[in-house]
């Protein structure tokens, strides 16, 4: 559909569409939305690599493709390495990568494929300094294989291998802070983003495009299927994750931290507001909730301190 010029100017999200309708994501899928924003931002001048994950399915089985951009499907743990290979080949062919007129080489991997099995390749990618972007879409478990916990699953969550039961066998470890591990590599650009704040996400995508060297974005992407949440609550949940400071928005650019909270002056909302909309947290006891709340606030204080000292 053609958008009239006078309206077009007001759009804060590009009108271009390179993510086709008819994809196979579940209703309310945050990852599908995220992928759509990436394609809107970079358009066709993008090469994707996607490991085995939900997006393998979302991108469509042969002979279909949801993406109007070249896409290379690869093995679960190889995103960082394949990114490096593609980037090296483009350079060898004299093709410009990154920058406004360059090709964006984008790795799009889930939390399991990043925080767990793909962590080594991610580290190699960051350390070697490839001119490419790695996006971890974080839906906090192995959703494609049937909702098994990953190291990015939060404390107190039900998953199919932290099933609750009589012995209260829920996830007992706090969420792994992949973004902190990434920042330890001192990349030129790293950020968190959320599908609930598309303008912020797109701004960060553009910054990643502009900044030479490896970039990383951890995108919070709700999964109604795995979180046992209503499919029309995904955006609300993603927003609450930010507002409770459970998943704060910030960026790390050339050694400096900058917090990008939508309402910087507001105190974080209680974590219960994020938890209560999701079936996966319904087995938590009062102590569990307290434990998670304390962790959230401690991590939030830590981040504020970092932004204060290294801002």
């Amino acid at each position: 559909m053609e958008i009239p010029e006078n309206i077009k100017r007001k759009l804060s999200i590009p009108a271009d569409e390179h993510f086709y309708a008819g994809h196979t994501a579940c209703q309310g899928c945050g990852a599908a939305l995220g992928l759509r924003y990436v394609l809107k931002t970079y358009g066709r001048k993008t090469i994707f690599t996607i490991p085995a994950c939900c997006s393998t399915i979302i991108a469509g089985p042969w002979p279909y493709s949801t993406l109007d951009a070249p896409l290379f499907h690869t093995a679960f743990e190889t995103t960082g390495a394949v990114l490096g290979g593609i980037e090296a080949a483009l350079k060898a062919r004299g093709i410009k990568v990154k920058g406004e007129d360059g090709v964006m080489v984008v790795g799009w991997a889930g939390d399991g494929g990043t925080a767990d099995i793909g962590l080594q390749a991610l580290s190699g990618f960051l350390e070697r300094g490839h001119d490419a972007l790695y996006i971890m879409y974080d839906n906090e478990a192995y959703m494609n294989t049937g909702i098994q916990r990953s190291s990015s699953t939060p404390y107190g969550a039900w998953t199919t291998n932290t099933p609750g039961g009589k012995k209260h066998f829920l996830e007992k470890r706090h969420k792994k802070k992949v973004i902190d591990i990434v920042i330890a590599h001192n990349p030129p650009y790293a950020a968190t983003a959320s599908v609930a704040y598309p303008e912020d996400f797109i701004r960060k995508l553009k910054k990643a495009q502009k900044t030479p060297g490896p970039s990383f974005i951890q995108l919070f992407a709700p999964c109604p299927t795995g979180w046992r949440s209503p499919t029309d609550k995904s955006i609300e949940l993603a927003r609450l994750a930010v507002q409770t400071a459970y998943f704060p928005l910030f960026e790390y650019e050339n050694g400096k931290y900058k917090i990008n909270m939508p309402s910087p002056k507001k105190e974080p909302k209680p974590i219960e507001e994020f938890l209560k909309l999701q079936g996966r947290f319904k087995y938590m006891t009062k102590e569990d909730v307290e434990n998670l709340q304390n962790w959230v606030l401690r991590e939030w204080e830590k981040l504020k301190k970092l932004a204060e000292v290294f801002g």
Partner: protein
Amino acid sequence: MPIRKVMKANEAAAWAAKLAKPKVVAAFPITPSTLVPEKISEFVADGELDAEFVKVESEHSAISACVGASAAGVRTFTATASQGLALMHEVLFIAAGMRLPIVIAVGNRSLSAPINIWNDWQDSISERDTGWLQFYAENNQEALDLILMAFKVAEDERVLLPAMVGFDAFILTHTVEPVEIPDQEVVDEFLGEYEPKHAYLDPARPITQGTLAFPAHYMEARYTVWQANENAKKVIDEVFAEFEKRFGRKYQKVEEYRTDDADIIFVTMGSLAGTVKEYVDHLREKGVKVGAAKVTVYRPFPTEEVKELAKKAKVLALLEKNVTFSVGGALFQDFSRALINESEKPKIVDFILGLGGRDVTFKDLDEALAIAQKALAGEEFEEVNWIGLRKEIL
């Protein structure tokens, strides 16, 4: 003019890579192959090779980076061995399934446990079902030549499969021999620039590679890998012939040595072929009617050539540095398969020897010969025999 230099097989492999001009080399160190990427990095540092050298954090990432680079349309090379090749295993299937003509130099080495850095063929033999082409070099010259030819076969439009070239750990990787380095111009003419005409990652032509295939399509995709392997048989003959014309060195999928009127033919691969030819000479002097054959191309398996070879002997004695437990060596399985429906066929006796760098001596070969002669005489014999075992420590 070609120059002759004294060098190790590792250096010969690096020289082959330099001559083939890959655009991306991704590698991770492992004994005994480390010297290959090391030498290539020197070529890159000295401006003698214009390639991106990706210093990856594992072999798994080495092959993954090669897969990404090859998919993005450039000639790609790496080297590894043993555990490193085993670590690449799942991605080897992906490279073949996606029809990416990557070439790997493999310094053939044993697999753990126990830890052992020395020669046998278990590493690449264990990858025989991945769809990769496999070549085995007898000496350092063959290592260089076969890598050049591997690129040419792999990149042929009728093939488009990755290829590995094996050369024995230490026996070749670390042993110097005179090697003729062909002229760059002749290699350029022989190999040409790699121009991907098939699917590759190009924003101007968005395509999806390696996508999910349902049961309705998966088998056909795998069948094309079968077809490509079949096509490779003819392409290899063509490439061997062209190589001989240009460089004067003759290659055959199965090379025979003194097989005329032989009762027993010893069949082997790699550097062991040199030892076996010597042994054949030694026996022939004593009037024993034996010959030798070397399998240079292991995948695609040279079924027709093996059938022809089988017609020449009453016993085929297979000398193998690999084992499938409870079955025997890989050649034993493949030779048996090739000959199973032949109306007349020789006896086949299998010998497992030289594992983990154990020297194979004439004494070992005498042990094998004695068993092969039992088969020749129509006596009972063991089909699979471990040769040179130190029974006192078992």
